[in-house]
């Protein structure tokens, strides 16, 4: 497997084709290419002192997680004028131990154009996620101008700003905002903290071992999961990736990963980033096409959120039948995707190693109506008593 980004620090985020890493050794935000080469570097104007264990990007701000005595520190940074400026620091102590956090953030557009000094704006999608005190980043407009505006109140579809905008913006110009931090805390039996990202105050704590020992998470717009494109808190738990609906705290879905080396070793994921349907997992080891790899530095390993053939399971009933050239057995091939759901209407090609016996329906398609993932065919017995091997091969054509 190719080594790729070759990070020497265990944090990573992604934006527009570039991978980013905060390096406490030279106090810089490195902008790296897929092959590990450096595209650019942004010096930090505040020194890190300790290693960054997780890095997030919300479209405007970079967010870092560091260990401090008795807890963790989360910092918000912005690239300004070629330097990374520290904007906020939130320390969480005592009783905090975390390797994974993220910032809940949304990317929207203006539903209508506004003139300079406007104090009311309309968004296309996420008005319901905006609350008083949230800071919206507007822009760029056609003049490449940005600005931050604070939200005063929400009235129906109207978002009323604390003061008028400085610049004019057109319909569909970008609007970015963040609202909450989510911290997986491994102190005790595990908790998930929802934090006001502007004040650092705890809003609510969810308890459960489900949230214990989480080493990688992110927040993003995920394509390919049920039921459609969703904004989800995505976290890794052992060899699964879970998509959490932060409004209901229920899971959109759970997806199997291949961060596992037989017989019993889970490969640690240090950080996660999502772009489109690509899921980038930062690891120091990988299992790839039945081979194990380990690296000195950190590289990404890919998964996809797009539904993909993942596992096949074949069974026969009955498994023993007379070698009379007449009897049949029902062959069922169960084809699941990485979410553990049966795949729809995929062809499965069957083969057997008996010269006389044969498969009656070939190819057979997985269930079209109920999503069971089952493709059913039949095997007609040969004339010699023997163990017959039947294989099924499913192919993804889309």
């Amino acid at each position, binding site marked *: 497997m190719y080594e790729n980004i070759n*990070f020497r620090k265990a944090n990573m985020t992604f934006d527009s084709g570039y991978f980013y890493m905060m390096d406490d050794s030279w106090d*810089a935000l490195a902008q*790296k290419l897929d092959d*590990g080469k*450096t595209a650019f570097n942004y010096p930090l104007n505040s020194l890190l002192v300790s290693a960054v264990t997780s890095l997030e990007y919300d479209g405007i701000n970079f967010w870092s997680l560091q260990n401090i005595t008795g807890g963790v520190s989360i910092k918000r940074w912005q690239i300004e*004028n070629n330097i990374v400026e520290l904007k906020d620091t939130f320390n969480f102590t005592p009783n905090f131990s975390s390797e994974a956090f993220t910032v809940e953030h949304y990317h929207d557009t203006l539903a209508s154009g506004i003139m300079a000094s406007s104090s009311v704006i309309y968004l296309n999608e996420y008005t319901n996620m905006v609350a008083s005190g949230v800071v919206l980043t507007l822009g760029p407009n056609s003049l490449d101008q940005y600005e931050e505006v604070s939200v005063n109140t929400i009235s129906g579809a109207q978002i009323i700003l604390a003061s008028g905008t400085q610049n004019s913006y057109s319909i569909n110009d970008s609007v970015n905002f963040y609202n909450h931090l989510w911290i997986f805390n491994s102190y005790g039996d595990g908790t998930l903290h929802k934090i006001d990202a502007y004040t650092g105050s705890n809003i609510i704590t969810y308890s459960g071992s489900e949230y214990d020992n989480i080493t990688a998470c992110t927040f993003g717009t995920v394509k390919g999961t049920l039921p459609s494109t969703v904004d989800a808190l995505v976290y890794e738990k052992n060899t699964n990736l879970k998509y959490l609906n932060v409004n209901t705290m229920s899971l959109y879905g759970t997806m199997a990963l291949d961060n596992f080396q037989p017989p019993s070793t889970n490969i640690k994921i240090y950080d996660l980033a999502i772009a489109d349907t690509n899921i980038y997992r930062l690891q120091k080891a990988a299992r790839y096409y039945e081979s194990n790899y380990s690296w000195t530095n950190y590289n990404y390993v*890919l998964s996809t959120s797009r539904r993909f053939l993942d596992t096949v399971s074949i069974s026969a009933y009955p498994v023993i039948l007379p070698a009379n050239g007449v009897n049949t057995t029902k062959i069922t091939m169960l084809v699941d995707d990485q979410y553990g759901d049966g795949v729809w209407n995929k062809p499965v090609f069957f083969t057997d190693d008996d010269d006389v016996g044969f498969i009656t329906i070939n190819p057979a398609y997985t269930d079209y109506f109920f999503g069971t993932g089952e493709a059913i065919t039949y095997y007609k017995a040969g004339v010699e008593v023997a163990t017959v091997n039947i294989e099924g091969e499913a192919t993804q054509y889309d």
Partner: protein
Amino acid sequence: MATENIKLIIGQQDNFTVDQGYFYTFDHDQDSLLQKTDDGNTAFSYPFDTLMSNASTDIVKSAEFDGVYFWSLQNKSDRISIKRWKIDNYICKLQQTFDYLDSDPSHTYDSQAFSIAHYHTQLSSAVISGATTLYLDDYWDDTTLMSFTTTSGDGLILHLGPNSNGEEEDVEVISTVSGGVTIASGTLQYSYDEADIVNFYTYLWVFNNYDGTSSATGALYKFDAYTGEYITKYAGGAYKDVTAATFYNVDSFASYGPVDTLIYIKGTNALFINVGAAGATLPYYGSMVMENIKSDESTVIAVYDICMDSQNIYRLQSAVDGTGTTWGHYSYLLSSLDAFVTSISLAAYPAIIAANTIATTDITAIVKDQFLQPIVGRLVYFTDDDGAGSVLPISDNTDGEGKAETVYTSGNTAREVKITAVVEQT
């Protein structure tokens, strides 16, 4: 791989500057300013009129040349020392020394890099001895520069010449007029021709590893280069642990045109500060990435000094860019102020597709120069290492954002496919 060139002695010649094809280094052990050629030979040697000690703390960590004077920075155990020198009659003569002591209750000094803000223009018309108005090609309309006043109340000093007789002199600016400046009556000793050189300097800029007495962050200190007095400082982590800096007129930023800028190296980037800006922080004209990184792409190679000449940036290093190879001496490595193709980001969406000879993925290459500006209208060639799969089109021109796109159609074997994008600098 780069070959050794100027071969400066480590621990003895940890500094350099350049002027008209020659490299200069202060050698505290030999008590000389050495003029070196590109291949490491010594073209000339100018003995100091004021000796330095042989102690390691007397090593000159940085050298600058402002067109008239050489400047040296020494980082001693109890102070930093900045000295102004001038070659006069084959001797390197000490003109002035500014010591910044750690015993200062308000400041602790620890610095490896500094520079002198210096400016170069020429006379736009001839002038005769005794004249009170000098007409200049540039800077006469820069009121900030022309109204520069030292902390002792003196005006800006212009260094005129040499003229055709080899004469040169300093004059003090009194005021500005359209196209030039006025000087005090009776102070101009010599006559000069049109296009004779005019040099001047203003402030010293020192990258200090302390902000006041705090080592939690660094600071960029501004001193009056005539009196040596402290003017102000700008705190920031970006100013800490800086080992190389210089001052130069750079024309690499389209939106600014030619600018006089303080340049320093931080990690693998050179940053260009606008020192003429007002405000609590200093803005940047830009930043450029360089190649002072080892083959592991994670270990930064230290740059001990930098200097610029024309569009060339010379970095003083003891290790070769892109390798782990180290030299027994310091030599220079080159960067360019001309925009070059520096990086190609390549991404596939989606990055996982079925190996069915039908599935496709969009491949996007983003081509940037060393200033992270997009390379526009450049042909990008795409290839893949999958015999059955294919990329089509095989080439595409970059758009206004430096993006070029193609589509990869999968092969029939499930495997990791490597797609490569190549851009040629034209």
